[in-house]
């Protein structure tokens, strides 16, 4: 039980950090600009010109493509009197004339097919997006590029083992969504792959028995029962999420078998190592995806947020069929 506690504390701390940060930041901002808090609550509106700004400000000299784009946009942005802000970079996102904001709001309502999300913590989210971006290029990508030298067959085995460990969570979530057949499939898969597949080193249930994986997660389960995103949040390393899906992650964590392995058998360092390996192993199949996403985007922050909302919407809708 001790293990569970330490791991939980660490996890909650991480999540708490991301939640608290924006709150603290907003508290600072409300002091200098009386309007700021009201603006901050008006979701995507306040990040119209903000992303280009925050992007260009933080990218260093030789960035050829994006800097030129973003700065050109930047010059035309209505520059407001900047009050001295304690929160530095992140706070620059908050400047927008009320008039411009109205326009954004109106067009928001007019067009969309429901793929919008409240983003009251846009400045911190953008900062976290930038941090994740740097982490990708500076840490994850070099590490993964070295890791890729491990033959693909081995990497697929690792991937299957990790995936098999998530079967209980998939089963329970399918069960909670009352999708009994899918839940049954996952139960059978877990048994077959764990026993015949020796801890899931291959997807025998799929390859020999034709029983396919039935994805389900706790964020989806919450959505299934009508719980909305709440607001958008960019998690460190894990990327786009929301209040609902963040809670979903915690829920899924408690449905993961490794959570219940006693501390004596698996130290938290080892757990973290496993997590890191899973992360890199997963990434090794997706090298280049993030680059092409970024190359295709005009505003990567908004593109990512929108993709997240659209993707999760589909996943929740599918659970209702």
């Amino acid at each position: 039980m001790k293990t569970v506690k330490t791991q939980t504390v660490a996890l909650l701390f991480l999540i708490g950090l991301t939640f608290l940060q924006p709150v603290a930041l907003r508290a600072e901002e409300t002091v200098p600009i009386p309007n700021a808090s009201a603006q901050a609550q008006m979701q995507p509106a306040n990040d119209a010109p903000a992303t280009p700004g925050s992007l260009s400000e933080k990218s260093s000299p030789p960035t050829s493509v994006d800097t030129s784009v973003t700065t050109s946009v930047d010059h035309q942005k209505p520059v407001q009197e900047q009050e001295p802000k304690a929160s530095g970079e992140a706070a620059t996102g908050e400047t927008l004339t009320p008039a411009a904001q109205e326009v954004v709001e109106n067009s928001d309502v007019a067009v969309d097919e429901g793929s919008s999300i409240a983003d009251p913590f846009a400045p911190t989210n953008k900062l976290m997006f930038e941090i994740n971006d740097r982490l990708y290029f500076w840490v994850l990508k070099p590490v993964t590029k070295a890791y890729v030298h491990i033959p693909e067959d081995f990497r697929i085995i690792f991937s299957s083992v990790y995936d098999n460990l998530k079967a209980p969570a998939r089963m329970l979530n399918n069960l909670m969504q009352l999708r009994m057949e899918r839940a049954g499939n996952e139960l059978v898969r877990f048994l077959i792959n764990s026993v015949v597949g020796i801890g899931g080193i291959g997807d025998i249930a799929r390859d020999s028995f034709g029983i396919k994986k039935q994805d389900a997660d706790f964020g989806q389960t919450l959505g299934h029962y009508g719980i909305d995103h709440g607001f958008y949040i960019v998690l460190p390393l894990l990327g786009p999420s929301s209040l609902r899906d963040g809670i979903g992650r915690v829920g899924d964590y408690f449905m993961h078998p490794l959570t219940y392995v006693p501390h004596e058998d698996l130290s938290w360092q080892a757990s973290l190592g496993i997590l890191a390996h899973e992360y890199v192993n997963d990434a090794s199949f997706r090298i280049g995806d993030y680059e092409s996403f970024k190359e295709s985007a005009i505003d990567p922050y908004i593109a990512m947020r929108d993709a997240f909302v659209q993707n999760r919407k589909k996943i929740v809708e599918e659970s209702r069929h």
Partner: protein
Amino acid sequence: MSIQKLMIRKGFAIVLSIIICLVVSVPAHAGLPLDTVKAYSDKVLEVLRDPSLKGESTKKVRKERLRTISEKMFDFTELSKRTLAQNWSKFNPGQQQEFVTLYTSLLEDAYSDKILSYTNEKIVFSKEVALTEKTVEVQSTVVRKTTEIPIYYRVILKDGAWRVYDVVVEGVSLTNNYRSQFREILANKQPESLLETLRKKVGGAGHSSGPASEPSQKKP
């Protein structure tokens, strides 16, 4: 009793099939949407798997071939209109035309590298779902080693041919995604400003082939 029921059902089925024939007969000569998309997809795979086009040196040739296919496969004007939605009318005809050209280049630049990196993936076309009278969603799945990615092509019937006006990958619609980005720009800027942004993006992207276009340049 049961025979009577059966007869009624049979009659109903016949009537229904006649109605379906009447309704469907218009696009029938254009070929089925699924077959159309699949044919294009096969052509792309042909380029990717052509043994005479292996290696870095032929990358330009392959990209050119992809472009030729995509120009037939996609209705870029329709795609542009749907992306800009009500903002489309804010553009004058000249600007609209330029937007289509730039947006097309942006998409081709961004995705051709990605597509060229695919070789072993299997593509399964599963079904087509009618969206409106003239639009259909063709559903496919790309089977990668560790995952399956659902890719849906939305096609529109125009001048007797089905052409793609939106691609939906794992629930993420391409046009919706760009709409959300362009909307932010057009909310407080003129169309010209968006065109300028696109010009720079397209012009700049042309110089950097490969992943070294962004912060990755800052290698130690």
